[in-house]
């Protein structure tokens, strides 16, 4: 973008039926055409999602007042998951959480990302807990990590759950690092401190028995 008054004319064509934009003609290098293809795919996806807007809007409305329907659905799915969990039907609970995650992650992209993080971190964290009940430590660890990624602060449970999963898988060093990081972020959380103590005890024990 060296000049604001000029641009590179790209040879685009439009599919008359689907209105999808594609590139026409041979573009120069393979790499540029690949990035172009990717960008056009993103554009077409965005275009399709713009169609989902309700009638009066032709452009995405401002992010703040959110359409409450989807949030209600996500909450409902999470509640159902929690109910199943309480009945100790963990497989069902995982299914509900997964549905809720799909619902939360397919939210139109222009809606507030903070809201997505808020919903997603709870769902991932709960799903991690359900996996842990089924002894799916690997899945639990991944889900808890995703939960932390969605919300780093004020998410002590997810930090704790991944730590617990790592301990259960015998990845003690990793667990110590993880819990240490969690303590940095969360401050002196009691359960995390306990877990850290436990991990360190086990590492020391390993060393003692190994020596």
């Amino acid at each position: 973008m060296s000049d604001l008054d000029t641009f590179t004319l790209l040879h685009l064509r439009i599919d008359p039926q689907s209105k999808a934009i594609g590139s026409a003609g041979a573009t120069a290098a393979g790499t540029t055409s690949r990035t172009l293809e990717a960008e056009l795919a993103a554009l077409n996806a965005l275009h399709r999602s713009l169609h989902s807007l309700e009638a009066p809007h032709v452009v995405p409305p401002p992010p703040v007042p959110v359409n409450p329907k989807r949030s209600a659905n996500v909450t409902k799915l999470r509640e159902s998951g929690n109910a199943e969990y309480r009945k100790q039907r963990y497989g069902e609970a995982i299914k509900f959480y997964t549905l809720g995650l799909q619902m939360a992650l397919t939210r139109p992209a222009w809606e507030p990302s903070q809201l997505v993080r808020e919903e997603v971190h709870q769902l991932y964290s709960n799903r991690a807990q359900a996996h842990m009940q089924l002894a799916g430590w690997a899945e639990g660890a991944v889900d808890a990590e995703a939960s932390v990624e969605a919300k780093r602060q004020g998410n002590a449970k997810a930090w704790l759950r991944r730590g617990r999963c790592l301990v259960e898988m015998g990845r003690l060093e990793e667990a110590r690092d993880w819990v240490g990081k969690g303590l940095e972020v969360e401050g002196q959380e009691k359960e995390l401190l306990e877990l850290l103590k436990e991990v360190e005890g086990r590492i020391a024990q390993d060393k003692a028995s190994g020596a």
Partner: protein
Amino acid sequence: MVDIDWWGLIVPFAYLVVLSGTFMTFSTIYRKRKATQSANLAPWFGPHLQRNIYLSLLHMEPEANGSEKAAAAKTPKVPESVIRAALLRRAVEDIHRIIQIRTAKAACSSLLQRGSVGDDLWQRFQRAEKEMEEELRDVVMEANALAPNWGQIIFQSANEIAANTVLKQRLDEIQAQTEREKEWWEKRRSTIKTESLKKLEDESEKTQGKVGSEDEPVLVDTNTPSATPVSGGGSKKKKGRK
């Protein structure tokens, strides 16, 4: 009357002419060089693909040169919604660039003060900043032309889109590990080390009787794959949930 000695004056005049001539040549050459230098400065960002697409869409028909709205309405081939989507994509890319510029600014200026980077890097940076301002103004104008008052909110939407994309990418990356982690854990569980088995034994106080000798953990573990899970059950129960 003083008789002017023209021949005597030639020397100072020649001196002046030579002097100013040198100055002028020097200054023109210097300026020319500087101009070419700044013209040849590599742009901060690569080509703005989204902007190119947007403008290409507008220019797809020869008569689409006029005001965007009228042109888009006149040419049925490019529906307005596509143009709006393209403009939104362009705004998203601009958001990415703004973030880059903001994060680079502090680092750049402190490096410049310390003399760690050359002057031309700073020039490139400032030019990128100015170009970004122009670009934003342009997008707002285009947005207002496409839909009433869209210019005020297009960057809010674009900002959320950008943030959401980043979040989704990260989550997808993390979730993509699931299969690998599961495989690893299966393998690990089948060949689990003696010590951890012994510890599990201690902790769970399960009767795993036959593991008296520490040399054959594999046997027990493959026989009772649920041995590991059960051990954690007790300590987990007490944790609360959201």
